[in-house]
């Protein structure tokens, strides 16, 4: 029997099997950041052991950093303490740190691929659930808790139960104005927030193959939102082209060897998955969420469901109450207060280009504040080089410095209570963007259109597609 992509990569990393069916799995790269690492470093110190393989660890400061005046000391005492603690720990243990002020600083899941650290066939972990992003390269990548961060620091290994495998095949072509973000929001709305629990997902099909690497990262990024341990996509020419020439990419003869190996990373035709789903890309509209988990999404022209249409009327009621929305309501035309473009889901250069292309020569609506937070210093640099910052500023968008920002509101970038924020991030949980904040998840183009219109609008109508109202 053939093997799945997941099995090929996993099997190469199994050190041994232990009682109860758990396996000791070797981890090639370990990303750390300021929020989930301090307790792990303490653990290592308390045990009186050192780091097992410090060269396999890469650190950045992202969750807690301000997105304004990054050259000044951080004002919030606790945030400053956490970021300083990371710096001290990295110095003490000899870890590469792309901290504040470094030209490569940024959101951990943006800088890994950007620097060519993320490569096909690797195992990658980080104390952050959106580590699944790196799966876009045919990498087994997943989020872990702080105890596991400590395990990897101590032994470069994790003790794991092998997850089940799922393949989601998406064939067909996305409509104009519809993006990979819409695609993944659509899939999550179909499978639910627990539909992928215990599984590692492979995304396949012609719609996936035709996507750029950045668009693929958006898909894998949100795998965790349906409960999956991670998502992955078989590497191909698009992947190799993306990696080639990056800082940590293999060079010369090494490159040839790497591509040869990477080219073997696909699911064999006779490989068997524990679960399979199929979707048609052509059926997908621009998506938007109406509720308080990422599974509560609808096509933008659809109506908010009624209690008789959902499995859990209680959850629907609770979340609509929080969101200030009604059952059966149409969202189009609804006034919005904030637009946030950023997070590890959609803050890469392509996302900024999509936004800039649309807002060029236009102005954001009066009632909206619009903030764009690039995923990394390199993205910010590139945007400046291309003159995007000017276009965005002229349109009334505020271009900030890199970090997680309003994705989780650990810094000052919070959405005020009761206000609506259309966001390109990945979570619309209660209070995620600040206590009482009401988040609606969308694609970057939809966010840009809404910023200009001031109200919820169908992006397709603005890119030359006639959508009957």
């Amino acid at each position, binding site marked *: 029997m053939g093997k799945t992509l997941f099995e090929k990569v996993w099997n190469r990393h199994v050190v041994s099997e232990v009682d109860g069916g758990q396996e000791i799995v*070797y981890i090639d790269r370990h990303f750390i950041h300021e929020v989930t690492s301090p307790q792990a470093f303490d653990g290592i110190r308390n045990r009186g052991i050192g780091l097992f393989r410090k060269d396999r660890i890469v650190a950045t400061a992202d969750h807690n950093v301000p997105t304004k005046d990054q050259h000044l000391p951080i004002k919030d005492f606790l945030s400053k303490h*956490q970021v300083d603690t990371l710096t001290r720990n990295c110095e003490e243990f000899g870890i590469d740190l792309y901290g504040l002020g470094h030209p490569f600083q940024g959101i951990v899941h943006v800088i890994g691929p950007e620097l060519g650290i993320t490569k096909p066939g690797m195992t990658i972990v980080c104390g952050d659930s959106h580590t699944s992003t790196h799966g876009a390269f045919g990498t087994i990548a997943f989020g872990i*808790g702080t105890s596991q961060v400590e395990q990897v620091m101590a032994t470069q290994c994790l003790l794991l139960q092998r997850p089940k495998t799922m393949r989601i095949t998406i064939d067909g072509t996305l409509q104009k104005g519809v993006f990979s973000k819409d695609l993944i929001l659509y899939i999550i709305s179909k499978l639910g927030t627990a539909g992928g629990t215990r599984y590692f997902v492979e995304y396949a099909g012609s719609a996936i193959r035709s996507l750029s690497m950045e668009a693929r990262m958006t898909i894998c990024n949100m795998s965790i939102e349906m409960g999956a341990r991670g998502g992955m996509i078989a590497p191909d020419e698009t992947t190799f082209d993306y990696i080639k020439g990056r800082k940590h990419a293999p060079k010369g003869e090494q490159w040839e060897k790497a591509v040869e190996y990477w080219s073997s990373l696909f699911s064999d035709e006779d490989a068997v998955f524990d679960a399979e789903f199929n979707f048609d890309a052509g059926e997908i509209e621009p998506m938007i969420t109406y509720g308080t988990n990422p*599974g509560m999404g609808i096509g933008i022209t659809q109506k908010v469901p009624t209690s008789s249409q959902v499995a859990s009327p209680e959850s629907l009621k609770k979340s609509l109450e929080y969101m200030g929305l009604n059952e059966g309501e149409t969202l189009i035309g609804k006034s919005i207060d904030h637009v946030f473009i950023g997070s590890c889901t959609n803050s890469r250069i392509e996302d900024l280009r999509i936004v800039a292309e649309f807002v060029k020569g236009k102005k954001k609506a009066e009632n909206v504040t619009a903030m764009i937070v690039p995923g990394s210093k390199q993205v910010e640099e590139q945007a400046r080089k291309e003159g995007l910052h000017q276009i965005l500023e002229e349109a009334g968008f505020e271009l900030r410095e890199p970090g997680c920002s309003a994705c*989780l509101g650990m810094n000052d970038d919070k959405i005020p209570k009761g206000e609506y924020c259309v966001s390109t991030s990945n979570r619309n949980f209660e209070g995620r963007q600040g206590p009482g904040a009401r988040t609606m998840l969308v694609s970057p183009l939809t966010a840009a259109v809404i910023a200009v219109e001031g109200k919820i609008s169908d992006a397709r109508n603005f890119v030359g597609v006639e959508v009957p109202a």
Partner: protein
Amino acid sequence: MEKFGILESTVVPIKVKDIDTDQIIPARFLKATSREGFGENLFRDWRFDEQGNPKPDFVLNSARYSGSILVADENFGCGSSREHAAWALVDYGFRAVVSSYFADIFKGNALNNGLLPVQVSPEFLKEIFKHTEENPQQYLLINLPDQTISISETEFSEQFEINSYKKMCMLNGYDDIDFLLSKKADIEAFEKQHIEF
């Protein structure tokens, strides 16, 4: 890590599905660099209003319910991987969480902190909610060695699953690091033949 054997306690029921870790401990409380003190902010925004006053309708503020077992509806612990969620529950005083479904990362984090996640059938979960609503003094009995959970002094009892290695760890208060450290020679041998591109 504290050892876990047999636990008998009244319960705190939260009849909400898909409780994500942002609710268990909101991000703005993740700025600490130690593991202690997170219990204060457990379920912060459900538990307190903006002024920090307890919201009377939330179960942790109700005089009716107390105990070291939290019972929650399906898909508990989804969302962020923050282990702070498990630390907050343990710090508050919970020793076990019962639900009909757990998110993966949360489950692992709980087990690594001596907090036992007990997955029961949806029917059994309903019974627990029913019994505890009728009688908040109702005890639950969780027997890890036998892998059973029962509603005390009723006929309701169920087996639950736990990985045998994890069970051994919980019973003895061991953690994975001790175990992995004992395998260092194997790991070094693995590295010798492991090619990475």
